[in-house]
Protein backbone atom coordinates (compact mmCIF):
# COMPACT_ATOMS: atom_id res chain seq x y z
CA UNK A 1 0.00 0.00 0.00
CA UNK A 2 1.43 3.41 -0.99
CA UNK A 3 1.89 6.02 1.72
CA UNK A 4 -0.67 8.30 0.21
CA UNK A 5 -3.52 8.67 -2.25
CA UNK A 6 -5.14 11.40 -4.27
CA UNK A 7 -8.84 12.10 -4.53
CA UNK A 8 -10.12 13.86 -7.64
CA UNK A 9 -13.45 15.60 -8.20
CA UNK A 10 -13.34 15.47 -11.97
CA UNK A 11 -16.29 17.77 -12.55
CA UNK A 12 -14.58 20.68 -10.81
CA UNK A 13 -11.36 20.35 -12.78
CA UNK A 14 -10.38 22.96 -15.38
CA UNK A 15 -7.20 21.16 -16.46
CA UNK A 16 -4.73 23.88 -15.53
CA UNK A 17 -2.09 21.20 -15.02
CA UNK A 18 -0.68 22.66 -11.78
CA UNK A 19 -1.06 19.35 -9.94
CA UNK A 20 0.62 17.36 -12.65
CA UNK A 21 3.53 19.77 -12.99
CA UNK A 22 4.29 20.24 -9.32
CA UNK A 23 3.66 16.74 -7.91
CA UNK A 24 7.02 16.01 -6.27
CA UNK A 25 6.81 12.29 -7.06
CA UNK A 26 5.18 12.58 -10.49
CA UNK A 27 2.07 10.63 -9.64
CA UNK A 28 -0.27 12.46 -11.98
CA UNK A 29 -0.97 13.03 -15.66
CA UNK A 30 -3.89 14.66 -17.45
CA UNK A 31 -6.14 11.95 -18.76
CA UNK A 32 -7.46 11.75 -22.26
CA UNK A 33 -11.00 11.62 -20.92
CA UNK A 34 -13.21 14.72 -20.77
CA UNK A 35 -15.33 15.96 -17.93
CA UNK A 36 -18.70 17.45 -18.78
CA UNK A 37 -17.16 20.90 -19.36
CA UNK A 38 -14.69 19.42 -21.86
CA UNK A 39 -11.59 19.54 -19.68
CA UNK A 40 -9.10 16.70 -19.26
CA UNK A 41 -8.92 16.00 -15.54
CA UNK A 42 -5.80 14.44 -14.02
CA UNK A 43 -5.55 10.82 -13.04
CA UNK A 44 -2.95 8.92 -11.07
CA UNK A 45 -0.55 7.23 -13.47
CA UNK A 46 1.88 6.19 -10.73
CA UNK A 47 -0.32 5.88 -7.63
CA UNK A 48 2.29 3.78 -5.85
CA UNK A 49 4.55 6.83 -5.67
CA UNK A 50 2.05 9.03 -3.87
CA UNK A 51 3.30 10.27 -0.51
CA UNK A 52 0.00 11.95 0.37
CA UNK A 53 1.78 15.28 0.73
CA UNK A 54 -1.27 17.18 -0.62
CA UNK A 55 0.81 19.61 -2.61
CA UNK A 56 -1.66 18.94 -5.45
CA UNK A 57 -4.43 20.02 -3.11
CA UNK A 58 -2.56 23.18 -2.22
CA UNK A 59 -2.04 24.08 -5.85
CA UNK A 60 -5.41 23.16 -7.30
CA UNK A 61 -7.24 26.44 -7.94
CA UNK A 62 -10.49 24.59 -8.49
CA UNK A 63 -10.57 22.54 -5.27
CA UNK A 64 -10.76 19.45 -7.51
CA UNK A 65 -7.91 17.34 -6.17
CA UNK A 66 -6.22 16.67 -2.87
CA UNK A 67 -3.87 14.16 -1.39
CA UNK A 68 -4.00 12.37 1.94
CA UNK A 69 -1.98 9.84 3.84
CA UNK A 70 -3.33 6.30 3.97
CA UNK A 71 -2.09 5.79 7.49
CA UNK A 72 -3.33 8.69 9.47
CA UNK A 73 -1.14 7.68 12.37
CA UNK A 74 2.10 7.69 10.42
CA UNK A 75 4.48 10.26 11.81
CA UNK A 76 4.14 13.45 9.92
CA UNK A 77 7.38 14.43 8.33
CA UNK A 78 8.22 17.90 7.28
CA UNK A 79 7.22 18.49 3.75
CA UNK A 80 9.92 19.81 1.55
CA UNK A 81 9.16 23.31 0.56
CA UNK A 82 8.24 23.66 -3.04
CA UNK A 83 11.03 25.46 -4.74
Amino acid at each position, binding site marked *: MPRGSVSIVVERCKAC*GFCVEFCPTKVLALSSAFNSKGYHPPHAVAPEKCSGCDLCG*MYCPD*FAIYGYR*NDKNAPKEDEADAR
Partner: protein
Amino acid sequence: MSSVAIPQNPVEPFLRSERMPHIWCPGCGIGTTVNCFTRALLDSKADLTKLAIVSGIGCTGRVAGYTNLDSFHTTHGRAIPFATGLKLANPELNVVVYSGDGDLFAIGGNHLIHAARRNVNLKVICVNNLIYAMTGGQTAPTTPGDVITSTAPYGTYDPAFNLPYLVEAAGAVYVARWTTFHVRQLAKSMAEMFQKKGFGFIEVLSPCPTLYQRRNKMGDGLDAMKFYKQVSKIKHGAPTSEVALSKSGEIVVGKFVDRERPEYIGTMNTYLEQQLGERYVEPHTLSDDGGCSGGELEVISCNR
Protein backbone atom coordinates in the same frame (compact mmCIF):
# COMPACT_ATOMS: atom_id res chain seq x y z
CA MET B 1 -7.67 1.68 0.84
CA SER B 2 -11.03 0.16 0.14
CA SER B 3 -12.48 0.05 3.62
CA VAL B 4 -10.79 3.18 4.91
CA ALA B 5 -13.05 6.20 4.71
CA ILE B 6 -11.52 8.77 2.38
CA PRO B 7 -10.84 11.93 4.32
CA GLN B 8 -12.35 15.18 3.17
CA ASN B 9 -10.43 17.77 1.18
CA PRO B 10 -9.21 20.13 3.91
CA VAL B 11 -10.50 23.10 1.95
CA GLU B 12 -14.04 21.75 1.78
CA PRO B 13 -15.37 22.96 5.15
CA PHE B 14 -14.28 26.48 4.22
CA LEU B 15 -16.20 26.53 0.97
CA ARG B 16 -19.78 27.29 0.20
CA SER B 17 -19.73 24.08 -1.85
CA GLU B 18 -23.21 24.72 -3.22
CA ARG B 19 -21.63 27.65 -5.10
CA MET B 20 -18.97 25.52 -6.83
CA PRO B 21 -17.71 25.57 -9.49
CA HIS B 22 -16.43 29.10 -9.07
CA ILE B 23 -16.19 31.73 -11.80
CA TRP B 24 -12.38 31.87 -12.01
CA CYS B 25 -10.74 30.96 -15.30
CA PRO B 26 -8.69 27.80 -15.91
CA GLY B 27 -5.17 28.50 -14.70
CA CYS B 28 -6.15 31.49 -12.56
CA GLY B 29 -4.34 31.40 -9.24
CA ILE B 30 -6.99 32.89 -6.95
CA GLY B 31 -8.28 29.46 -5.96
CA THR B 32 -4.74 28.42 -5.10
CA THR B 33 -4.47 31.33 -2.68
CA VAL B 34 -7.74 30.22 -1.09
CA ASN B 35 -6.18 26.79 -0.43
CA CYS B 36 -3.30 28.49 1.34
CA PHE B 37 -5.71 30.69 3.28
CA THR B 38 -7.67 27.71 4.55
CA ARG B 39 -4.50 25.82 5.50
CA ALA B 40 -3.35 28.88 7.41
CA LEU B 41 -6.65 29.05 9.26
CA LEU B 42 -6.38 25.36 10.12
CA ASP B 43 -2.83 25.81 11.34
CA SER B 44 -3.60 28.84 13.41
CA LYS B 45 -6.62 27.09 14.96
CA ALA B 46 -8.62 30.28 14.57
CA ASP B 47 -12.18 30.36 15.89
CA LEU B 48 -13.95 30.44 12.55
CA THR B 49 -17.15 31.77 14.08
CA LYS B 50 -15.25 34.90 14.99
CA LEU B 51 -13.63 35.26 11.61
CA ALA B 52 -15.08 37.59 9.01
CA ILE B 53 -13.84 38.07 5.49
CA VAL B 54 -14.39 41.25 3.50
CA SER B 55 -13.80 41.67 -0.22
CA GLY B 56 -14.14 44.50 -2.66
CA ILE B 57 -15.04 44.11 -6.32
CA GLY B 58 -13.14 42.16 -8.95
CA CYS B 59 -12.07 38.57 -9.53
CA THR B 60 -10.46 38.31 -6.10
CA GLY B 61 -13.46 40.19 -4.71
CA ARG B 62 -15.41 36.99 -5.22
CA VAL B 63 -13.41 35.12 -2.59
CA ALA B 64 -15.71 36.34 0.19
CA GLY B 65 -18.69 34.79 -1.55
CA TYR B 66 -17.10 31.38 -1.78
CA THR B 67 -15.83 31.09 1.79
CA ASN B 68 -18.15 29.65 4.39
CA LEU B 69 -17.48 32.37 6.94
CA ASP B 70 -19.25 35.61 7.77
CA SER B 71 -18.44 37.17 4.45
CA PHE B 72 -19.00 40.57 2.94
CA HIS B 73 -18.76 41.46 -0.71
CA THR B 74 -18.69 45.23 -0.55
CA THR B 75 -18.30 48.01 -3.09
CA HIS B 76 -15.33 48.65 -5.35
CA GLY B 77 -12.33 49.76 -3.35
CA ARG B 78 -14.10 49.98 -0.01
CA ALA B 79 -13.41 46.62 1.59
CA ILE B 80 -10.95 48.20 3.99
CA PRO B 81 -13.22 50.92 5.41
CA PHE B 82 -16.06 48.39 5.68
CA ALA B 83 -13.70 46.05 7.51
CA THR B 84 -12.58 48.92 9.73
CA GLY B 85 -16.17 49.53 10.81
CA LEU B 86 -16.76 45.83 11.38
CA LYS B 87 -13.62 45.49 13.49
CA LEU B 88 -14.20 48.64 15.53
CA ALA B 89 -17.81 47.74 16.23
CA ASN B 90 -16.94 44.20 17.22
CA PRO B 91 -13.26 43.93 18.18
CA GLU B 92 -13.47 40.23 19.01
CA LEU B 93 -13.88 39.50 15.31
CA ASN B 94 -10.79 38.62 13.32
CA VAL B 95 -11.23 40.49 10.09
CA VAL B 96 -9.51 39.48 6.87
CA VAL B 97 -9.64 41.67 3.78
CA TYR B 98 -9.20 39.62 0.63
CA SER B 99 -9.11 41.58 -2.59
CA GLY B 100 -7.28 42.38 -5.77
CA ASP B 101 -4.57 44.84 -6.70
CA GLY B 102 -6.83 47.21 -8.61
CA ASP B 103 -9.44 47.24 -5.88
CA LEU B 104 -7.01 47.77 -3.01
CA PHE B 105 -4.47 50.09 -4.63
CA ALA B 106 -6.30 52.16 -7.22
CA ILE B 107 -9.86 53.00 -6.24
CA GLY B 108 -9.20 51.86 -2.67
CA GLY B 109 -5.64 53.14 -2.32
CA ASN B 110 -6.49 55.96 0.00
CA HIS B 111 -8.27 53.67 2.42
CA LEU B 112 -5.42 51.19 2.40
CA ILE B 113 -2.76 53.70 3.36
CA HIS B 114 -4.94 55.21 6.08
CA ALA B 115 -5.80 51.85 7.62
CA ALA B 116 -2.08 51.03 7.62
CA ARG B 117 -1.33 54.41 9.16
CA ARG B 118 -3.84 53.78 11.94
CA ASN B 119 -2.57 50.22 12.27
CA VAL B 120 -6.08 48.83 12.39
CA ASN B 121 -5.92 45.13 13.21
CA LEU B 122 -6.85 43.91 9.73
CA LYS B 123 -5.19 41.15 7.71
CA VAL B 124 -5.03 42.14 4.09
CA ILE B 125 -4.42 39.55 1.40
CA CYS B 126 -3.89 41.14 -1.99
CA VAL B 127 -3.98 38.82 -4.96
CA ASN B 128 -1.97 40.68 -7.58
CA ASN B 129 -2.59 39.57 -11.15
CA LEU B 130 -1.13 42.83 -12.46
CA ILE B 131 -4.32 43.83 -14.28
CA TYR B 132 -8.05 44.59 -14.03
CA ALA B 133 -9.27 41.17 -14.96
CA MET B 134 -13.00 41.11 -14.31
CA THR B 135 -13.57 44.17 -16.48
CA GLY B 136 -11.53 42.80 -19.36
CA GLY B 137 -7.84 43.48 -18.89
CA GLN B 138 -7.30 47.19 -18.37
CA THR B 139 -4.13 48.75 -16.98
CA ALA B 140 -3.89 48.58 -13.18
CA PRO B 141 -1.61 50.60 -10.90
CA THR B 142 0.42 47.40 -10.62
CA THR B 143 0.78 46.68 -14.33
CA PRO B 144 4.50 46.71 -15.17
CA GLY B 145 5.85 48.79 -18.05
CA ASP B 146 5.81 47.60 -21.64
CA VAL B 147 2.74 45.43 -21.19
CA ILE B 148 -0.23 45.41 -23.56
CA THR B 149 -3.60 45.94 -21.90
CA SER B 150 -6.99 46.79 -23.33
CA THR B 151 -6.51 50.43 -22.36
CA ALA B 152 -2.82 50.48 -23.31
CA PRO B 153 -2.95 48.96 -26.77
CA TYR B 154 0.59 50.18 -27.53
CA GLY B 155 1.95 49.12 -24.17
CA THR B 156 2.06 50.61 -20.70
CA TYR B 157 4.31 53.47 -19.68
CA ASP B 158 2.63 54.45 -16.38
CA PRO B 159 5.03 53.61 -13.57
CA ALA B 160 3.63 50.86 -11.31
CA PHE B 161 3.35 50.76 -7.54
CA ASN B 162 5.79 48.65 -5.57
CA LEU B 163 3.17 47.37 -3.14
CA PRO B 164 5.35 46.21 -0.22
CA TYR B 165 7.29 49.49 -0.28
CA LEU B 166 4.09 51.53 -0.23
CA VAL B 167 2.46 49.50 2.52
CA GLU B 168 5.55 49.53 4.70
CA ALA B 169 5.82 53.29 4.35
CA ALA B 170 2.18 53.64 5.32
CA GLY B 171 2.78 51.76 8.55
CA ALA B 172 1.96 48.04 8.18
CA VAL B 173 3.52 45.81 10.84
CA TYR B 174 3.75 42.74 8.62
CA VAL B 175 4.57 42.79 4.92
CA ALA B 176 5.33 39.77 2.76
CA ARG B 177 5.18 38.81 -0.89
CA TRP B 178 4.76 35.35 -2.39
CA THR B 179 3.52 33.90 -5.63
CA THR B 180 0.94 31.18 -6.17
CA PHE B 181 3.86 28.88 -6.81
CA HIS B 182 4.98 29.27 -3.16
CA VAL B 183 1.97 27.55 -1.65
CA ARG B 184 3.56 26.26 1.54
CA GLN B 185 5.41 29.48 2.28
CA LEU B 186 2.28 31.47 1.56
CA ALA B 187 0.18 29.38 3.93
CA LYS B 188 2.84 29.69 6.61
CA SER B 189 3.14 33.41 6.06
CA MET B 190 -0.61 33.90 6.32
CA ALA B 191 -0.71 31.95 9.57
CA GLU B 192 2.13 34.05 10.89
CA MET B 193 0.35 37.25 9.90
CA PHE B 194 -2.84 36.13 11.64
CA GLN B 195 -0.90 35.88 14.89
CA LYS B 196 0.28 39.47 14.64
CA LYS B 197 -1.60 42.41 16.06
CA GLY B 198 -2.02 45.28 13.68
CA PHE B 199 -2.21 45.90 9.98
CA GLY B 200 -0.72 42.97 8.07
CA PHE B 201 -0.31 42.72 4.35
CA ILE B 202 0.58 39.89 1.99
CA GLU B 203 0.90 40.34 -1.74
CA VAL B 204 0.41 37.19 -3.78
CA LEU B 205 1.38 37.27 -7.43
CA SER B 206 -1.09 35.17 -9.34
CA PRO B 207 -1.50 34.19 -12.99
CA CYS B 208 -4.11 35.84 -15.17
CA PRO B 209 -3.88 33.68 -18.25
CA THR B 210 -7.01 35.02 -19.90
CA LEU B 211 -6.20 38.72 -19.93
CA TYR B 212 -2.72 39.60 -18.79
CA GLN B 213 -0.83 36.72 -20.30
CA ARG B 214 -2.75 36.07 -23.48
CA ARG B 215 -2.44 39.65 -24.66
CA ASN B 216 1.27 39.59 -23.92
CA LYS B 217 1.99 36.15 -25.36
CA MET B 218 3.05 34.89 -21.96
CA GLY B 219 1.37 31.48 -22.20
CA ASP B 220 -1.14 29.99 -19.82
CA GLY B 221 -1.49 29.69 -16.06
CA LEU B 222 0.99 26.87 -15.88
CA ASP B 223 3.54 28.92 -17.82
CA ALA B 224 3.14 31.68 -15.28
CA MET B 225 3.70 29.21 -12.46
CA LYS B 226 6.86 27.92 -14.13
CA PHE B 227 7.99 31.49 -14.63
CA TYR B 228 7.47 32.23 -10.93
CA LYS B 229 9.48 29.13 -10.06
CA GLN B 230 12.28 30.21 -12.35
CA VAL B 231 12.66 33.88 -11.47
CA SER B 232 11.61 34.07 -7.82
CA LYS B 233 14.26 34.69 -5.18
CA ILE B 234 13.43 34.34 -1.51
CA LYS B 235 15.00 37.25 0.32
CA HIS B 236 13.52 37.60 3.79
CA GLY B 237 14.06 41.05 5.15
CA ALA B 238 14.86 42.52 1.74
CA PRO B 239 14.49 46.32 1.75
CA THR B 240 11.09 46.91 0.22
CA SER B 241 12.53 49.72 -1.86
CA GLU B 242 14.38 47.04 -3.80
CA VAL B 243 11.53 44.65 -4.57
CA ALA B 244 9.78 46.44 -7.41
CA LEU B 245 8.49 44.16 -10.15
CA SER B 246 9.08 44.30 -13.85
CA LYS B 247 7.60 42.43 -16.78
CA SER B 248 10.17 39.65 -16.93
CA GLY B 249 12.74 40.36 -14.24
CA GLU B 250 13.44 38.74 -10.92
CA ILE B 251 10.58 38.42 -8.42
CA VAL B 252 11.81 38.98 -4.88
CA VAL B 253 9.59 37.11 -2.44
CA GLY B 254 9.73 36.62 1.29
CA LYS B 255 8.80 38.32 4.51
CA PHE B 256 10.01 41.89 4.30
CA VAL B 257 8.60 43.56 7.38
CA ASP B 258 7.77 42.16 10.81
CA ARG B 259 7.69 44.89 13.42
CA GLU B 260 5.68 46.15 16.37
CA ARG B 261 3.54 49.26 16.45
CA PRO B 262 0.64 50.04 18.79
CA GLU B 263 -2.55 48.64 17.29
CA TYR B 264 -5.48 51.00 16.76
CA ILE B 265 -8.25 49.74 19.01
CA GLY B 266 -5.96 49.03 21.94
CA THR B 267 -4.40 52.45 21.58
CA MET B 268 -7.80 54.08 21.43
CA ASN B 269 -9.07 52.30 24.54
CA THR B 270 -5.94 52.94 26.54
CA TYR B 271 -5.70 56.55 25.54
CA LEU B 272 -9.35 57.39 26.16
CA GLU B 273 -9.33 55.58 29.47
CA GLN B 274 -6.27 57.55 30.50
CA GLN B 275 -7.93 60.82 29.46
CA LEU B 276 -11.40 60.13 30.82
CA GLY B 277 -10.73 57.85 33.76
CA GLU B 278 -13.92 56.41 35.21
CA ARG B 279 -16.04 58.30 32.74
CA TYR B 280 -14.76 56.05 29.97
CA VAL B 281 -17.13 53.29 28.89
CA GLU B 282 -15.67 50.69 26.53
CA PRO B 283 -17.58 50.24 23.29
CA HIS B 284 -20.11 47.41 23.22
CA THR B 285 -22.40 45.85 20.64
CA LEU B 286 -26.17 45.57 20.81
CA SER B 287 -27.54 42.98 23.20
CA ASP B 288 -29.41 39.95 21.87
CA ASP B 289 -32.76 41.70 22.22
CA GLY B 290 -31.45 44.36 19.89
CA GLY B 291 -31.03 47.11 22.47
CA CYS B 292 -28.11 48.87 24.06
CA SER B 293 -27.01 47.19 27.21
CA GLY B 294 -27.91 49.30 30.21
CA GLY B 295 -25.46 51.43 32.07
CA GLU B 296 -25.20 54.10 34.68
CA LEU B 297 -26.78 57.43 34.03
CA GLU B 298 -24.24 59.67 32.44
CA VAL B 299 -24.05 63.05 34.10
CA ILE B 300 -22.04 65.55 32.16
CA SER B 301 -22.62 69.04 31.01
CA CYS B 302 -23.98 69.14 27.50
CA ASN B 303 -23.01 72.72 26.98
CA ARG B 304 -21.13 73.57 23.88
